C-alpha cells in the first residue's frame, strides 16, 4: 500500500471508499450505509496516513491497532482494509453472503487482520484499553485507535471504560466518536441525549478534541495532537454527517440501516463520480 499525508489524495481515497460502501450494501440488499459514510474520512486518514501498520505483515507485534466499536459500520472498514491490500477489493460485493470473509459485522475468524470482533455495542473501547495495557507491559510503541458511534456511547460499559482508561493513564489510546447525531430509531437528542458531551469526556479525565470529522486536515491535526498528550487518553469528538456524500442520505435516520435500490445506487454514484 502507498501511504500519504496529502489531504487531496486522502479525499480521493475517501471517495473511492464511499463508492465501495454503497456498492457492497446494495449488492447485499442490507447493511448500514449512514454510519459507514459518516466515518469514512476518519478511517481512511487512520489507515492511509496515521497508523503504523503493514498489510504484508498484519501480525507485526508493534503495529498500531484499530477497532471499530460501531461494528455495523464495517463496510467502511472492509473497503479501507481492501484498498490497503489486506483483503480482496473484488470480493467486497460478497458482503453478508454465506461464506464471505466480509461478514455482517467484523469477525476475526474470517479476517484475521481485524483486531477484534465487534457488533455488540459498547465493548470495543474496553478491548482497546486492554490492548493498550498490553503494549505498555511489553514496552511497545503500539497505539490503539477505536471508533465509537455516538449512539454506542449510551452503553454503560463505555463509561466504565472511560474511568478505567483515565485511571490507568492510557495515553496510547485514542477513541474517536463518530458524532453524527443519528441512531437507529431517530435523532440522538430524541432517543437519549449525550450533551454536554465535551464536558462528559473531560470530566472523566480524557483529553478532548472537538473537530469536523469530514475535514481531513482537522482530522490529521487531531491525531497528531493526541500523540503529544501524555498521562491521559484522548477522545476525538468528530462532528460528522450521517450519510455524508450522498445528498438524499445525509442527515436522514432512514439510512442508518437500509440498503439503497439499484436506482438509488446509480444516483449516489453519480454524486460520487
Amino acid at each position, binding site marked *: 500500500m502507498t501511504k500519504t499525508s496529502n489531504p487531496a489524495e486522502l479525499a480521493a481515497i475517501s471517495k473511492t471508499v464511499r463508492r465501495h460502501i454503497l456498492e457492497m450494501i446494495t449488492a447485499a440488499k442490507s447493511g448500514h450505509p449512514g454510519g459507514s459514510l459518516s466515518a469514512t474520512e476518519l478511517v481512511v486518514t487512520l489507515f492511509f496516513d496515521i497508523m503504523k501498520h503493514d498489510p504484508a505483515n498484519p501480525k507485526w507485534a508493534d503495529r498500531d491497532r484499530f477497532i471499530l466499536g460501531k461494528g455495523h459500520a464495517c463496510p467502511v472498514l472492509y473497503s479501507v482494509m481492501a484498498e490497503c491490500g489486506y483483503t480482496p477489493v473484488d470480493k467486497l460485493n460478497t458482503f453478508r453472503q454465506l461464506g464471505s470473509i466480509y461478514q455482517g459485522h467484523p469477525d476475526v475468524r474470517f479476517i484475521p487482520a481485524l483486531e477484534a*470482533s465487534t457488533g455488540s455495542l459498547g465493548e470495543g473501547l474496553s478491548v*482497546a484499553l486492554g490492548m493498550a495495557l498490553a503494549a505498555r507491559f511489553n514496552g511497545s510503541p503500539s497505539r490503539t485507535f477505536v471508533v465509537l458511534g455516538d449512539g454506542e456511547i449510551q452503553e454503560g460499559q463505555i463509561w466504565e471504560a472511560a474511568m478505567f482508561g483515565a485511571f490507568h493513564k492510557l495515553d496510547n489510546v485514542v477513541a474517536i466518536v463518530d458524532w453524527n447525531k443519528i441512531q437507529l430509531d431517530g435523532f440522538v437528542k430524541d432517543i437519549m441525549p449525550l450533551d454536554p458531551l465535551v464536558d462528559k469526556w473531560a470530566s472523566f479525565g480524557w483529553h478532548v478534541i472537538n473537530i469536523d470529522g469530514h475535514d481531513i486536515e482537522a482530522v490529521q491535526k487531531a491525531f497528531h495532537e493526541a500523540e503529544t498528550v501524555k498521562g491521559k487518553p484522548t477522545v476525538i469528538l468528530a462532528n460528522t454527517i450521517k450519510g455524508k456524500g450522498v445528498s438524499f442520505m445525509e442527515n436522514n435516520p432512514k439510512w442508518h440501516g437500509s440498503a439503497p435500490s439499484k436506482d438509488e445506487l446509480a444516483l449516489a454514484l453519480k454524486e460520487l463520480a
Partner: protein
Amino acid sequence: MALSKKYELKMGPATRESFGKALADVARKNPDVVVCDADLSKSTNTHFFAKEFPERFIQCGIAESNMVAVGSGLAAAGKIPFVSSFSAFVINKGFEQLRVTAAYPNVNLKVVGTHSGISIGEDGPSQMSIEDLSLACNLPGFTVLAPCDDVSMTAAIHMTAEHVGPVFVRAGRSKAAHVYEPGAEFRIGGSTELLPGTDVAIFANGLLVAEALRAAEILDAAGISARVIDLYSIKPIDRAAIERASIECRAIVVAEEHLKDTGIGSRVAQVTTETTPCVMEFVGVDNTYAESGTPEAVVEKYGLLAKDIVTAVHKVLARKK
C-alpha cells in the same frame, strides 16, 4: 464389605485460597501472566499475586463488564490475563463480554469465579452463583473446570495457564476437604474415579465430591457399592467415564452445588442418552434461590449433603431394572 479406600476428608483451604496461591506461583514462571480484579482481591485471593507482582495487577474497580473486555484485549495482544471476581458477578455481569469479546474470537482469556454456589452462606442469593457452570458451558470454545480441593485447584490453575484458549474456573468460599494427595494427576477433559463401585455411579464436582465420598461410606454400610467420580472437567466432559459408568453400574446420580435445571447433571444425561442410557437422579439446587445462613445450615436446608445423595441413590436403585 469394606470400601477400597478410606478418605479422611480433613478440612483444607478454600479453593479460592488455593487459586490465589497457585496464581502467584504460575506468575513466577510466566511473565506474561497478568491479573485483573474488580475490587474484590482480598476475597478472591488475587491479593497474593498483587502483593508479589503489583506492576502486573490491574485494578478494574467495580466494573466487571469492562474488566472482562479489557482482559480480552490483553489476551488478543498476547498476554495471559486472569480476570477474577465473585462468580455471580463476573459470569452474570460479564457474560455478554465473555460471549462477544472472548468466546467468539476465541482469545486466551482466563476467568476465575470465586464464591460460587450457595455455600457462601451469610451473604445470600444475590452473591450465590448457581448458574455459572451452565453459562460458562454456553460459551463455545471455553474450557470449564470445577475443582474440589487444594490439590486439584492448584493443578487446575497451572493447566489453565498452560492451555491456549479461554477457560472458566469455578472456586468456592468455604473451606474444602482434602480429597487428593499431592502429585495427583489431572487433565482437561478428564475425571477421577475416587472410589470403584458397581451398583451406582455418583458424579460430583466441587464441594459435593466430599459429600459423595461420605455418601459412599453410608451406602457401603447398607451393602450398596457406589462408584464416586470427580467430574472436575465440565467442558470438555469425560464421555468415556460417563459411558463406562452407565454400562457397568446402570444407575447414575449427579450431585452439584448448582441449579439442577441446567447444571452438569444435564450434561451427563446428554452423554448417557447419546451413548448408553441408564436411570439417573440429580442432587442440586431445585428451581429456587437459597437464603442467608451459615454455610452448613444453607447446604443442609437446600439439600446438598451426603444424606441427600444417599436418598437419591435409593431412588435411582428403586428404578433400576
